[in-house]
């Protein structure tokens, strides 16, 4: 064999090896993917079945007939006042997201750019509250809002978020620290106030981080179950997830309709994820920054 032939053989072997490991990788990846997809698929399939095909032996894999009308039935059921629930959820999610962003921007700017006495101590306290389990503040906070007469409204769920949350302050502060000081100093020399600097220079530069903070708060509020459960009492005030729970309590066995409603409640978040996937993944990854 000439050197040329040997080289060719090595190349072939390497190619074979790479193809083989590639195939194995895909086999493993897709095998696991099936485990994750099947429950989802079952949600969709069940939501399109007539009731008598939900629990059968042998299983019905594909509904016959396909009951698109399940969606209509679920969304127009008086037990699941969809438009009302949706409106409540959107108000909750938008108001809490706006508050989270505004307060985190303002507070994190002070930590990132202003020099004042007590900064390190206050920042230390902020970091410490990040690890604080919510459970220890739950009951006095509830009693505080009850004293204010806010039970049965969204105020306890929204108002605190307008005053800042430790993790978002931390996240935006880290982000602002990466913006060159020269940029803000130049504006300061030109006589810009801190509010102007924050609004006109900082905010446009940290937009990706704001999007991450906003997305996660929106999702957290949309999916929030515990908060609405303890603070709201009238069904007409419920957000979607609580409405979904109440729907199930009243129609315990109508699984086809419950699955249709579940999918509708989940869908906007999944759509949002696909629209902003990069920011979602960055956001989760950034939350890991705390650890390293």
């Amino acid at each position, binding site marked *: 064999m000439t050197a040329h032939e040997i080289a060719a053989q090595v190349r072939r072997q390497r190619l074979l090896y790479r193809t083989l490991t590639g195939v194995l990788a895909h086999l493993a990846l897709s095998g696991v993917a099936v485990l994750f997809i099947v429950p*989802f698929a079952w949600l969709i399939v069940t939501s399109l079945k007539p009731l008598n095909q939900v629990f059968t032996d042998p299983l019905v894999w594909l509904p016959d007939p396909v009951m698109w009308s399940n969606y209509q039935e679920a969304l127009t059921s008086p037990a699941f006042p969809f438009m009302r629930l949706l409106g409540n959820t959107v108000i909750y999610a938008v108001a809490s997201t706006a508050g989270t962003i505004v307060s985190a921007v303002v507070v994190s700017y002070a930590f990132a750019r*202003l020099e004042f006495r007590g900064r390190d101590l206050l920042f230390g306290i902020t970091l410490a*509250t990040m690890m604080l389990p919510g459970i220890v503040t739950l009951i006095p906070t509830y009693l505080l809002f009850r004293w204010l007469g806010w039970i049965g409204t969204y105020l306890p769920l929204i108002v605190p978020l307008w005053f800042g949350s430790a993790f978002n302050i931390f996240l935006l502060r880290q982000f602002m620290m990466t913006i060159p000081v020269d940029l803000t100093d130049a504006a300061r020399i030109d006589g810009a106030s801190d509010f102007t600097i924050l609004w006109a220079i900082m905010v446009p530069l940290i937009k990706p981080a704001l999007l991450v903070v906003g997305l996660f708060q929106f999702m957290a509020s949309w999916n929030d179950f515990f908060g609405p459960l303890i603070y709201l009492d009238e069904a007409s005030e419920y957000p979607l997830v609580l409405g979904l729970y109440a729907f199930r309590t009243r129609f315990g066995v109508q699984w086809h309709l419950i699955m249709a409603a579940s999918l509708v409640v989940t869908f906007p978040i999944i759509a949002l994820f696909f629209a902003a996937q990069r920011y979602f993944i960055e956001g989760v990854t950034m939350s890991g920054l705390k*650890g390293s």
Partner: protein
Amino acid sequence: MASITPADQPPVARRAPRLSKQLRRDLQAYLFLAPWLFSLLAFTAYPMIASFYFSLTKYSILNPPRWIGVDNFVTMFTNDPLYWKAVANTAYYTFVSVPLSIVVALGLALLLNQRARGIGIYRTIYYLPSLMPVVASTLLWLVLLDPRLGLVNIGLQAIGLPKLGWLSSADWSKPGIILMSLWTGTGSAMLIFLAGLKDVPSSLLEAAMIDGANGWQRLRHVTIPLLTPTIFFNLIMSIIASFQVFGPAYVAGDGGARQAGPLNSLLMYMLLIYRNAFRFFEMGYASALALVMFIVLVALTLAVVRSSDSWVHYEVGRR
């Protein structure tokens, strides 16, 4: 007064602005910080202090709190059988689901750390269940885990295993919600692990490969040691989350109306607090329950932090 010359001492008129400059800076900064300071006082400091006080009172919401000393704690430890049930359930859930979720999340991250086409699609698929609202995912799993005709049991039967009672059996209800939590709750940890894996320098792995280390040895002796800070972070986060698990237990356990799951097997600690606070309106007793959980959680976290010296490696040059 007249003896002080301008040379000895700067005139008052020039000193005042210097002083007030620092003061002005402070004031301006605290203006920016005002919302957060208010939040720290009203939504963190006050509730923490108040919960100590309430835990020492009998406080049935309609009447003002009445001081009863440590009675709540005595009742809890000696006279509330549901307390120990909830402790046992929560401990079971935590000690099974935390290690499992770490292993699963790490396994998924390792799978996703391969060079393969379309890896982004797999990442999306693995992460997707984490987006579902807990009510929706729990309702879905009630269908999947139906003891008679659920997909999971039919699958078990198809491969020759016995059907399990899942959420309608006292023995299998916790494994049921743990299985569910592996599907819904590992996405974030997985992504954090994946980011950690991207930080493992390939030069070290190549060096190990040249030294003849096989795949398992490289994982065991290079990748995992470098990943210990991430494992440490995910471990603490998932301990805190699993102690406070509520949604799945509430939805699957029928809202804790009578029993939380068969024989109260889904009565998690948070559910016990919820019942006492918002069903029975025993705010004093509920505060005491919350305080004990808080103390245990802090102690456990500190123990993990303390232990980290011996197993978490911070490499030079890493963040």
